[in-house]
C-alpha cells in the first residue's frame, strides 16, 4: 500500500468574540470536518479560541514573491496614506 499524505489545511482561530480570526498554522486532514477536529486538538488545548476556520491550502491564492517590488514598493513613499495624523481615542484596544 502506498502512503498518501492527507491534504493540507490552513487554520484560523478567533481568540475571543469581537476579534477577527487569525492564522495560527496548518495541519493535515482527510477532509474539512477532520481538519476542524484536529485544529481543536492542536491549537485550542489551552483555551486559545472560541471559533475555528479551516481552509484547504490549495484554495489559497498567493501573491508571487517575484512580483513583490511591483506590488508593494510603490506604497513605501506615500506616507500620507498612513493615519498618523489622527489621535487614537483612549480606551480603544484593538485598532
Amino acid at each position, binding site marked *: 500500500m502506498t502512503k498518501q499524505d*492527507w491534504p493540507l489545511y490552513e487554520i484560523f482561530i478567533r481568540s475571543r468574540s469581537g476579534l477577527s480570526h487569525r492564522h495560527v498554522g496548518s*495541519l*493535515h*486532514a*482527510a477532509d474539512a*470536518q*477532520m481538519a476542524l*477536529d*484536529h485544529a*481543536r*486538538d*492542536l491549537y485550542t*488545548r489551552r483555551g486559545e479560541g472560541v471559533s475555528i476556520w479551516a481552509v484547504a491550502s490549495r484554495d489559497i491564492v498567493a501573491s508571487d514573491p517575484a512580483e513583490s517590488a511591483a506590488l508593494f514598493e510603490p506604497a513605501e513613499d506615500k506616507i500620507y496614506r498612513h493615519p498618523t495624523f489622527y489621535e487614537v481615542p483612549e480606551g480603544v484596544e484593538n485598532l
Partner: protein
Amino acid sequence: MTKAADKKMLFEYLLRLGDNALVLGQQLSKWVGHGPELEEEMAMANFALDYVGQARMFFSYAAEIEGRGRSEDDIAFLRDCGEFRNFLLIEQRNGDFAQTIARQFLFESFYQFQLDGLSRSTDKRIAEIAARVIKEINYHLRHMRQWVLRLGDGTEESHRRLQHAFDYLWRYTGELFEADDIDVWAVQHGVGPNPEELLGRWKDYLENTLKEATLNRPEDGWMDSGGRNGHHTEHLGYLLADMQFLQRAYPGANW
C-alpha cells in the same frame, strides 16, 4: 442499610467508573508514536489525558469515602488484576486502528448515557464530575463516530476491518447493561442510572451510526462478562504490568 455498608457500595461504584477511565487512558496513550498521522496521534493523546483526569477524580473521591488513608495513586498503581473493576470491553487490545475505534465507539456511546444519568445523581460530587466529563465524552464520541463513518463507508479494506472489529468486540457489550446488587443500590439511592434502562437508547444510537456507515449490527450471541467482579481477560495483566511497573519496582517513587 447501615452507613458503613452504603460507603462500601459507593466505594465499589466509584472504582468501576474510575477503572474504566484509567484503563482506557493507558490504552489510548499507547497510540502515541504509532498513530496513522501526527494529528490523529495528538487527538488520541488528548483523549488519553481526559481519561486519566477522570480516573483521578473518581479515585480521589473513592479514597476519601474509603477513609483508610490511601491516595488516588495507591488505588491506581497498587491493585492487582483481581481488584480491577473495569468492563472487559475496556481492556481489549488496541489491535489495528479499526479495533481501537470500534472499542471506543461501543463504550463511549454507552458512557454518554451513563454520564447523563450520573449528572443527575443525588451524590453532589458524582453529579459535578459527570457534568464536567460529559463534555469531554461528547467530543470523543463525535471524533469516533466520524471515524466509524469514514472507515465503514470507506474502502473495501477499511470496511472489512471495522466490521470485523465490531463483530469481535460485540461479545463484550452485554456486560455494559447488566445490573447487579451494586447497581440496584445505586438506583435505589438515586446515585446512578439503571444500566438495563440505557440499553434502548444505546441500541438506537448505535444502529443509526452503523447503518449510516454501511456496517451490519453484529448478531446477538453469547456475551462475556465478569470484569466488574474482577474476572478479567488475559489482556489486563499485561496492561497493568506496563502501567504499574514504576511504582512496583520503585515503591513511592515521585516526580
